[in-house]
């Protein structure tokens, strides 16, 4: 079977909104002022859109076989020294997959049931170690008892890359306020690897990169213009993982 390698890049829907506004202007006689104010507003919001890239590799385009009653577990890698794949992100991806009628076991429930073999120190990092672990009848029995068919390993983090500007807030008897401007860039990089627990083989992998800039404008009241970088990474990864297990 021919392996499938996909590369997708997309922005949040603001780009298409700008296109639609310009098209509408050319088809109607609305005043220029309305168009320009809309474009300025959109331009401001466009600064808050994240650019997300997804790379995927899997043996075939067919959905991965997942029978009724079989479950998937999404686990975070936590053995790196300088970062940790956070639990909120794992829950976010799990919830995205649950929405597609895929049985997803909670991460902590699975880790506790098989303690201590999926702790950061002991979790298998590759298939040879998983194969050895599954030779233990107690571990194999617990995996089968919970009908865990696939493990999805998530590894990555969200980091603030660059920040600039300054904002200061003050409060006094006559009132208070914030003045200034600050901006920061965030980058989310996550990799997902799917392991088949029955045939003990890798079923595919995904990588998502999401990047965007957020702003905080201090004009008496602080006005945040936040780019949902991590949330975009979660929804993109979750949707793509869903397509691994279901017909699109």
């Amino acid at each position: 079977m021919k392996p499938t390698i996909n590369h997708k890049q997309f922005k949040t829907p603001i780009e298409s909104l700008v296109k639609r506004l310009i098209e509408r202007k050319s088809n109607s006689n609305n005043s220029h002022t309305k168009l320009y104010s809309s474009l300025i507003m959109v331009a401001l919001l466009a600064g808050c859109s994240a650019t997300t890239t997804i790379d995927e590799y899997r043996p075939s385009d067919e959905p991965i076989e997942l029978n009724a009653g079989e479950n998937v577990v999404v686990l975070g890698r936590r053995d790196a020294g300088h970062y940790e794949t956070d639990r909120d992100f794992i829950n976010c991806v799990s919830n995205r997959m649950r929405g597609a009628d895929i049985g997803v076991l909670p991460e902590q429930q699975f880790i506790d049931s098989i303690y201590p073999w999926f702790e950061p120190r002991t979790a298998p990092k590759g298939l040879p170690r998983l194969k050895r672990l599954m030779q233990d009848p107690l571990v194999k029995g617990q995996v089968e008892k919970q009908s865990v068919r696939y493990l999805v390993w998530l590894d990555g983090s969200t980091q603030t890359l660059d920040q600039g500007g300054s904002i200061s807030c003050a409060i006094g008897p006559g009132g208070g306020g914030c003045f200034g401007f600050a901006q920061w860039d965030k980058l989310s990089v996550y990799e997902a690897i799917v392991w088949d627990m029955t045939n003990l083989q890798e079923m595919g992998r995904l990588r998502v990169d999401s990047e965007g800039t957020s702003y905080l404008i201090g004009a008496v009241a602080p006005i945040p213009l936040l780019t949902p970088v991590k949330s975009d990474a979660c929804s993109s990864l979750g949707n793509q993982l869903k397509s691994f297990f279901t017909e699109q």
Partner: protein
Amino acid sequence: MLKNYLSKTVLKRSLALILLAILSGCSSSASVRIDQEFPTVLAKPKAISATVVFDEAFATYIAQPNKKTVIDIGAGQVKLLSNAFAGLFEEVEFVSSLEESAGENSLVIIPSVREVQVSTPSENYLNVFEVWIKYSLEIQTADGETIDSWFMPAYGKTPDAFMASKSRAIEEASIIALRDAGAKLMLDFYRIPAIYGWMMEQKILEESE
């Protein structure tokens, strides 16, 4: 007039309370107590009987790694290690002093805490809180002869989160460090050269294989 005064007072107090709540999230000191339950280990114990001594100093151990941090891990570590030792040995007796033991078991293990260290994002320049617990396991035969004094370090970390309290982060990192101690014990106890040698001597390995 009175109504206006009262509403202003209520508003001021509410604002003060909100400010206090926000500032408490930014507190730089942390005092945590770990006494939660830990999962039982998934392992087949070996045909060895052991006595584990959790003395009072160990069972009530309170670590103070720095002036601003206090971690009460006594109860938590007793629960965790009780589970782990039950997964290592077929028969295990837990006592609070060696005198309480009937002396019928082939191994005696006396755990103690050497040191607890913490590191916060302001110290390590990473977005993680870290906790190290360094244990020492005094392992003896039933006759009181020392087999080994095993150094067992455990490590836990938790990511820093916006507006999350330092106490909560250190509590989570401590729980992960305790779980890591259980994992380390299960993974490495029978790999200790002195224990391996003792088991060969007692012909325990041949029996269990």
